[in-house]
């Protein structure tokens, strides 16, 4: 088993140790996954559909209870300090998940209230995010009047409003227009510079190759590769100048499948 270890040093925002979990104890989805993510790092989470990425994220969010192992966020498990744990995480799911009865502005207000942000600072940040994502004119709109991409922007604005210790984003680029993608990348760079650790799950490997400090590759609930994009390519035997992360990922999956077939 490969274990992901942060290499940039500094305080750990996320530490997962020997995590086994899933919906059923008889058929766990994750098998002894370990990784750490330090403040200011961007960790790319890669895997095929059904590899266990979403299950891993649910365990980190505390929406699922591990069968064994532990998840620490900002140094605490959910049981040890629920308040610290929850207030250290901000999450953007793959599908926009908004309250139909709240306007964009009210979503931001509720998030700010939930995280205990000061009113003036929250609105200043909200205005900046609205400008970044070109949502200023939509602040008083209800979600059912917004396109899917705009809803995704609202989710991102909510998550970025908080400036948490750990930001978890599942497929952030789906449905976004090119300017919004550029705005998101800029905003992610900004929060990283301020010390936020980012766990980013995506199938767009070229983006991860450019932006991620490190990558972890999950396959059938097991961590099969970890390291910087260059190291992952080397682990896959794709170290040529022409090799892309897509090539490396394909090689890793094929190797894992072959290995399992030979077991």
């Amino acid at each position, binding site marked *: 088993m490969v274990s992901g270890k942060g290499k940039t040093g500094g305080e750990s925002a996320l530490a997962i140790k020997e995590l086994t979990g899933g919906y059923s104890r008889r058929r766990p989805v994750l098998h002894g996954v370990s990784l750490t993510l330090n403040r200011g790092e961007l960790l790319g989470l890669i895997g095929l559909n059904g590899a266990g990425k979403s299950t891993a994220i649910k365990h980190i969010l505390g929406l699922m209870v591990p069968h064994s192992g532990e998840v620490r966020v900002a140094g605490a498990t959910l049981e040890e300090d629920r308040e610290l744990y929850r207030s250290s995480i901000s999450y953007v799911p793959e599908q926009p998940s908004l309250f139909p009865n709240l306007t964009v502005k009210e979503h931001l207000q509720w998030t700010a209230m939930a995280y*205990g942000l000061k009113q003036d600072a929250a609105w200043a940040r909200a205005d900046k995010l609205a400008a970044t994502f070109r949502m200023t004119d939509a602040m008083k709109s209800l979600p059912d009047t917004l396109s899917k991409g705009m809803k995704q922007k609202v989710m991102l604005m909510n998550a970025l409003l908080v400036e948490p210790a750990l930001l978890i984003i599942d497929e952030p680029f789906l449905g976004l227009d090119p300017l919004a993608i550029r705005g998101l990348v800029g905003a992610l760079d900004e929060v990283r510079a301020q010390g936020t650790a980012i766990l980013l799950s995506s199938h767009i490997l070229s983006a991860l190759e450019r932006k991620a400090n490190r990558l972890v590759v999950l396959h059938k609930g097991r961590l099969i590769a970890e390291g910087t994009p260059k190291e992952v390519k080397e682990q896959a035997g794709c170290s040529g100048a022409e090799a892309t992360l897509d090539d490396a990922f394909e090689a890793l999956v094929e190797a894992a499948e072959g290995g399992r077939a030979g077991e």
Partner: protein
Amino acid sequence: MSRNAHGEQGDFLHSLRRERAAAFRQEIVPYFRYVIQSGFGLFASAIFFATLIWYTDLIKAVPDDWPSKWVGAIVLSLAALRAPLRTYLRPADPIFLLAMENRVLGQYIGGALRRAIFAGVLRTLVVFALYAPIYIRSPQTAGLADAHPPVILAALFALLAGYNVYAGWRERRAAARFWRIGLKAFRLLLTVAAVTALLLKSLASSILLAAVCMVLLALLWRLPAQHALPWERLIEEEASSRRKWMGFLSWFVDVPSETAKPSYRRWIAWVGNLIPWSKRWAWHYLYVKVFLRGDTFGALWRWIIVTCIVVAVSGSALADAIAFGVSLVVCGLQLSELKRVRFVETADTLPLPPQGKLAAAASVARWSGIAAVAAIGAVGPATAGLGGSGAGEALRLDYWLAAIAFGLLWCGWWMPRKIAKFRDEDDL
């Protein structure tokens, strides 16, 4: 396409609507056992028999000052105006049925429209059958009744009701919201004018007025841009009808919740902004906004308005107090819906204590209930002595205070307590 294939499509659509209607009935009928067991059956029976006794007494000797003219105009207008259309359309229908839109219009919507017209005519005839004895015997309208044969009036009201249902369909077809609202408002005005004229003016002139109104409406329908079949609107309306049924049933038993389309309600949603900016009040903020823009509040405020009107015009202190009490029972039941508010997935990941949800729901229900008691409670003293003919009974403070006390207990204490103690994790 061959004639045979057209026929098959028509049969398919005809049976599809019938199957869906039957499936809906099969879905809701089993729940009525719980409604009856809950005591609602007893309560409704009590109301029915009390109303029957009151009605029998009334038609035996209608008092001189009983406002039969206006009661007739109001109840018959309300009966004729209703134009609901149950289509049982589903969100996926435009994808699968769009290719046979013309057939859907003829076989599917046509069938639904015919049933709606039949229901509208029947409803109006029942209301007229109940009103006719009053019309004939009331000192205020007996003279008019001599010149208005009931059979002819019944036929005219039936025609008006059927026309209203069809007019409702034409309104739905208008593409712009402005036109839909405008046509509806115009239909309301013309129907009230026609009903009032048919009851209170000479038959010949009022028939002419009704005919002019109908022609005028028919001309107006030609003006706006129209959909041949307003899929989205009908699907939304169907979902709303389902929600109303399920909302009613959920007062008595757990039913699958239906997601409601929110209303912006700028005029009241600002109340949520008065909540202090603090983590402690975050759940309250969410509940207030969800409540004020949801179906529950839509039903609640209309119910309060109707009660206020009843209290203002009834002219009887006892009737006022009973209406107040009954209305508050319904308000409390509607507020109990707050315990079933469903939250999005991400709400569970925020740093807020989950147990705070029900406490906030109970608090919002309490203050909303108290506001309802205050609103209706203020109308009684403000309109005491009015009544339909302007000679209503003075306010009976003992009745009124008892009704207020009951309202505060039910809406301000008992129902919030039930919400706070609600235990069904699946619903949180």
